């Protein structure tokens, strides 16, 4: 056993937490190590100081002062009354998380739907069909909206089958419910952390 290991065991010994087998090893080491014998004596003296001097006597009137001050606040910090579930803090956390997760899910859902639509619709042909027939450079913006863009949108809409719409709706509903669940769990966790002593 080296002196470094012995030091840890010396502290175990003075704390009364040493294992019997370690105590035997330590005593064997102490029998031959003057340095650790001196350390043990020094630690024992230090222990006496800690135990004797760690407690500090407060001012004589402080018990009454503390009791009075705490009890004066009992209307504010009532023991029996339960706080309402929907506190301002909870609402703020909930709305904040909802907003953040809603933004994230809109982005995610949007990406999913666009990818889904792109795979179902032949956008190139839809654009070429509408543009080739009506579009020219002299056309005003409003005319373009009325003719080509509306044609393009109607072509896209016609290409979406009913089953695709239901699938997208299901994805959105799933994501929204997931968002509510995450918001709820986050809020619960945050409130719990705040209330932790």
């Amino acid at each position, binding site marked *: 056993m080296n002196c470094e290991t012995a030091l840890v065991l010396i*502290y175990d010994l003075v704390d009364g937490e040493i294992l019997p087998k370690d105590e035997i090893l330590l005593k064997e080491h102490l029998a031959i190590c003057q340095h650790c014998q001196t350390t043990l004596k020094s630690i024992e003296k*230090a222990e006496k100081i800690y135990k004797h001097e*760690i407690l500090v*006597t*407060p*001012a004589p009137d402080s018990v009454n002062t503390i009791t009075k001050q705490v009890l004066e606040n009992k209307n504010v910090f009532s*023991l029996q009354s339960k706080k309402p579930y929907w506190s301002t803090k909870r609402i703020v956390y909930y709305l904040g998380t909802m907003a953040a997760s809603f933004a994230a899910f809109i982005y995610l859902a949007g990406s999913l739907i666009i990818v889904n639509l792109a795979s179902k619709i032949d956008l190139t042909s839809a654009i070429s069909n509408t543009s080739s027939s009506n579009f020219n450079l002299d056309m005003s913006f409003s005319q373009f909206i009325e003719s080509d863009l509306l044609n393009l949108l109607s072509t896209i809409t016609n290409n979406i089958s009913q089953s695709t719409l239901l699938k997208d709706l299901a994805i959105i509903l799933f994501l929204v419910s997931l968002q509510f669940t995450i918001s709820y769990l986050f809020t619960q966790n945050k409130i719990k952390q705040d209330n932790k002593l």
Partner: protein
Amino acid sequence: MNEIEPTFEAKLVERILKGDESAFAELVAQFHKRIYSIAYRMVGNVSEAEDLCQEIFLRLYQKLSQYDPNLPLTPWICRIASNTTINYLKRRGIKTMPLEIMVNLKEKERPIADEHATPEQAMIVENRDKKLQSAIMELPENYRLAFTLKYVENLTSEEISEIMNIPRNTIKTWLVRAREALRGKLINEL
């Protein structure tokens, strides 16, 4: 650690919950010296220790309805004291008090180390206490709390581990390091 029996503790808490103010005064009187000692050793000056002590008792009062009467009260109070102290130190934002503040404490701000000591003994104890407190304040907060809980409440490393919610071996390591650091500072007193 075991000054009052669990049944008495449970009855005391029950009386407080029913609105008996004298029961709360009894509870404060029972734990005040130890709570104050933890607070003082953690923050290092009387005025802050009094504030922290009051905050711990306020927390205690607020949380009494959550106390399980089947469990001993002291570890539960220690956990509240420990968490409140950690939160207080986080809020305060100063990890350790500068040594010069400790050394220059006014006489009236120093805690009373021993009520029955002679003036000479009191001076020796006071000087040693100053050195001890300065050394404690130089410890990291987690070492300081583990050390303070151990000696104020006479707890084992297992009990400290449960109170601080830290693995026992970590607590043991912290305690060894803390005490070695203190022994190094107090070497002339040993």
